[in-house]
């Protein structure tokens, strides 16, 4: 739906007068514009402050090149562009029709005939791109506009010429996990066969209303994309076989677009006749709506100056309450793209503004439900990036005075006192970052291409320390990959005592990675050498898979939680000096998702909650003590020799870590409904539990053992930043601070 211009939108771009906004996101804004002769166009812009970076300007130019390659039949016709302007812009036709995800939301799963017609036309679109040596790399329902004459593929924000390494750099995994190809998910080059994989996923979505690998946290999705069979339930039988072939894990097993088109075509006839009524009605509505736009511009809000450098936002003194501070990080939000022809202007690669960047009110798009503007009793709150289907951030790291938040594809360094975002940095995924408590380390991917080659000649990974002042990955401390060991695919498990522990795939990538053996390895960060490498059980379809849910180092032991392909979780403890397995036992009755919590351990024991609270001896895995049978505890926290956990129906209790004897328990009954999934926080005067039902963080006076006060709060994880004397509450797109006493 077009909306009025805001007071600070430009009057014109090149010869085009702006008349309305179509959408806005982290990278730029899309406008409706008009030529002197009244030709009406969609004008896509890139924020001037982003355009100062050569890389993004190059990306913008490549996108307009790709859009020209696909042309007006299969894409939005490019009319004009000026990638060199201060605010680079591209003018295209205004496309009349809803994006495919909206079409499915309106009409429900589409009939087979529609899916076939869409698929055959999309094969034509991809074929045209591939013949011009362009891969799309981000084909997904929101990038496909359904017009009355066929689908149009838009948003080439990350499409690039094959072999073009100008944009190859370390950084965020590109693409959308739900429709990503397995090779893309493992960081390898995405070829035309990857687009075929994505296309099949899009068609499964069109036929069923969900992707072939479901939804959920990106890490889980990526895992399923790589290892799980696609779920084709609900796909018409005649299509299921064809689409299954396209969803083969090995790119070489997938058909090309020409063959696929012949399989999908089922006769002739007008495309419009195959569209369900609600989609047709939406196309008709949009054909009318664009003519109702009256050029309009909103006045500057009286209570808000045009720009406020965030550095001048006054820091709160003491626990004062502030309204909702939308940090500059709002610019990584998704797109407000309800209007036709709006690109899902990818946020993933967009840098957030630095501390001196202009304050910008974020515009949550349809992919991000607007943060509830509830008044919380927080010291500050910020909204963080990501889309709706992305995971909640893991518990923040607290190196020194800072707080480092792990969003799915970005790190945020936050000043615990004010909530100010000092910097943000792109990461591959949360599983490539670890902290030893003082520093943050990152497993950085670097790809090199021979000139003209579609595939990277080498892909290397290096361990780097993240500079906590700037967010930049520092010099390469150690190479994770090498000719002998491979290691293209890896996960940084933990860093402790100058050693990084990783899971890596071994061997050179000749075939699909699933066939590669895996190992756990220890890398000395001072010398770069490998202290040991221990093979993991070979992973075939039938065997156990290696999927690490949590890892920590205690003394000489590396504690690992591994998910198996039957959905069970095992606790594996290795000797950090040799890598040998000390012991390995199942953790019965826990869901893998519930096990994604920091491990609670001391030199002698590992403490398990999320069920009956108990202590396992680190030396041999035997149970030393357990809470009385029939009790259920939440996630535990160890503090001063006491294991604190919420006991179901009772509230926060403390148990002596050595003996298992009760040491402390709250009274008064207020704790009966405390959440079991949020770790408690223990301060010097108060202990804290979260109550999801009431939306409250409850402070319990440790001396009187009764409720001291309630804070209106929200979040999944609550973590103490002891030096800053705050509790950080993190949730989806959300970080807030509460006083720690």
């Amino acid at each position, binding site marked *: 739906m077009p909306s009025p211009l805001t007071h600070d939108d430009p009057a014109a771009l090149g010869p085009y007068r702006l008349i309305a906004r179509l959408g806005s996101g982290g990278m730029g804004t899309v406008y409706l514009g008009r030529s002197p002769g009244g030709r009406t166009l969609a004008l896509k812009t890139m924020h001037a402050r982003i355009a100062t970076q050569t890389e993004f300007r190059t990306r913008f130019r490549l996108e307009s090149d790709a859009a020209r390659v696909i042309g007006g039949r299969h894409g939005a016709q490019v009319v004009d562009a000026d990638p060199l302007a201060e605010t680079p812009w591209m003018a295209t036709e205004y496309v009349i029709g809803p994006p495919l995800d909206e079409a499915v939301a309106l009409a429900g799963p589409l009939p087979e005939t529609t899916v076939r017609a869409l698929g055959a036309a999309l094969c034509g679109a991809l074929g045209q791109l591939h013949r011009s040596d362009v891969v799309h790399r981000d084909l997904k329902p929101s990038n496909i506009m359904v017009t*009355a004459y066929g689908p149009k593929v838009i948003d080439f924000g990350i499409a690039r010429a094959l072999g073009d390494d100008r944009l190859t750099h370390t950084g965020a995994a590109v693409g959308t996990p739900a429709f990503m190809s397995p090779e893309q998910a493992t960081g390898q080059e995405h070829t035309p066969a990857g687009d075929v994989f994505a296309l099949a996923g899009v068609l499964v979505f069109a036929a069923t209303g969900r992707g072939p690998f479901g939804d959920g946290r990106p890490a889980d999705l990526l895992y399923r994309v790589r290892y799980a069979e696609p779920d084709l339930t609900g796909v018409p039988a005649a299509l299921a076989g064809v689409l299954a072939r396209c969803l083969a894990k090995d790119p070489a097993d997938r058909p090309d677009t020409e063959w696929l088109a012949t399989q999908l075509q089922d006769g002739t006839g007008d495309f419009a006749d195959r569209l369900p009524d609600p989609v*047709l009605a939406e196309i008709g509505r949009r054909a009318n709506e664009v003519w109702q736009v009256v050029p309009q511009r909103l006045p500057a809000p009286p209570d808000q100056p045009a720009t406020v450098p965030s550095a001048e936002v006054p820091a709160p003194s003491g626990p004062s309450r502030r309204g909702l501070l939308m940090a500059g990080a709002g610019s990584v939000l998704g797109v407000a793209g309800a209007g036709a022809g709006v690109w899902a202007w990818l946020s993933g690669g967009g840098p957030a503004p630095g501390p001196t960047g202009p304050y910008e009110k974020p515009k949550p798009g349809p992919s991000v439900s607007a943060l509830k503007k509830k008044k919380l009793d927080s010291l500050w709150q910020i909204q963080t990036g990501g889309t709706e289907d992305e995971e909640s951030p893991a518990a923040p790291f607290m190196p020194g005075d800072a707080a480092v938040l792990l969003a799915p594809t970005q790190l945020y360094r936050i000043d615990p006192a004010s909530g100010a975002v000092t910097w943000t940095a792109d990461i591959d995924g949360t599983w490539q970052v670890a902290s030893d408590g003082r520093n943050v380390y990152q497993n950085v991917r670097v790809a090199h291409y021979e000139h003209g080659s579609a595939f990277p000649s080498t892909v290397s990974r290096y361990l780097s320390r993240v500079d906590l002042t700037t967010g930049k990955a520092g010099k390469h401390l150690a190479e994770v990959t090498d000719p002998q060991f491979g290691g293209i695919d890896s996960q940084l498990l933990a860093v402790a005592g100058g050693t990084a522990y990783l899971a890596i795939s071994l061997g050179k990538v000749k075939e699909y990675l699933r066939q590669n053996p895996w190992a756990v390895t220890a890398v000395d960060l001072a010398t770069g050498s490998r202290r040991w490498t221990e093979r993991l059980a070979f992973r075939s379809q039938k065997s156990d898979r290696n999927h690490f849910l949590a890892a920590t180092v205690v003394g000489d032991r590396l504690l690992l939680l591994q998910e198996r392909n039957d959905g069970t979780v095992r606790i594996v403890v290795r000797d950090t000096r040799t890598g040998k397995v000390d012991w390995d036992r199942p953790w019965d009755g826990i869901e893998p998702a519930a096990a994604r919590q920091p491990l609670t351990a001391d030199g002698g024991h590992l403490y398990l909650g999320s069920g009956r609270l108990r202590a396992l001896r680190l030396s041999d895995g035997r149970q030393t003590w357990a809470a009385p049978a029939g009790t259920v505890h939440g996630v535990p926290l160890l503090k001063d020799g006491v294991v604190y956990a919420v006991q179901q129906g009772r509230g926060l209790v403390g148990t002596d870590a050595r003996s298992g004897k009760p040491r402390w328990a709250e009274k008064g009954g207020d704790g009966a409904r405390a959440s079991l999934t949020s770790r408690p926080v223990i301060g010097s005067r108060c202990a804290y539990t979260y109550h999801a039902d009431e939306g409250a963080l409850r402070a319990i006076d440790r001396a009187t053992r009764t409720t001291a006060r309630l804070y209106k709060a929200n979040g999944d994880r609550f973590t103490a930043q002891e030096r800053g004397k705050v509790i950080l509450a993190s949730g989806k797109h959300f970080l807030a601070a509460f006083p720690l006493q």
Partner: protein
Amino acid sequence: MQAPVAGAGGEVRGGRIGPYAVLRRLDDETRGLPVPERRFIGRSADGDRTVLVGVPLPGADPARFLAEAEASRYLLGPWSAPAAEVAAPGGAPWHARPYVPVIPLPGALAVHGGPLPERTVRALGAALVETLVIGHGQGLAHAGVSPGAVLLAADGPRLTCFGAVRAAAPDGAARSGLPGLESGSLPPEQADGGSPQPMGDVYALGATLAYAATGHTVPEREELPAALRSVLTACLARDPAARPRPAELLDALVPRTAEPAPGGPADQGRPALGPDAHGDPAGRAAAALGPGWLPGRIIAALARQSAELLATNAPVPPAAPQD
């Protein structure tokens, strides 16, 4: 890009009508059916306003044309097409209204490839009945309903050509065979020179709906969809008193209840009724215009017209000052 139709004859000189540059004709395809005015899509010099413009046929009386255009300003209802702007007296006559993508009914049959589905005919009829009833309540007989006068937009019809019969010749003069008047939808009493009355609109509407359902304004009875046969035949009665009242016509087109249409078998083409479809007639027509009321190829043609006009640049205005 579609080349604008410049100098398309008659009063349209230099590709301009009044202040508007002509982008194209509206009536590319009328299948030989007369239309009482010439219609164009035009655009203002600043490019911001795109309009539907009408000018009289060559040889028509400009004063009568302008008088009807002036009266049409007062038409109400979502599916009427009041003039928003009328040429100043003394100059070349024209009237204009804001553009929405539309296809004249004959063009819609051409695009669809034949008669329209019964559901479309019923929804169209309901909206037109309602529009006529509003006019009749204002004391305005439309006197210009014909297939060419009905434009289809995505959200419902637009009934144009208000007063075409009155403009063609004064009362008392025979009107048969006059340019622009489609003989099948001209009520016999008006053809004989009678003053247009509301029941004449019912006749013309019957002929127009018959056209939508069969491709002819004077169909064989058997050609009509069975469920609509008796009511459309009744509309075409020579005796105005024998024609159905508009309310009866609405009931026949969009039944009040979920029961089958009167005189017809259980009927799949019957439009879905909204929750408020039982009381307010306006609600019944609006409910009938829900998703699916227009066939896909007509929606596609509307979207194409919209896209083409969005992509059209008006010719550069002449250097001479406009005012």
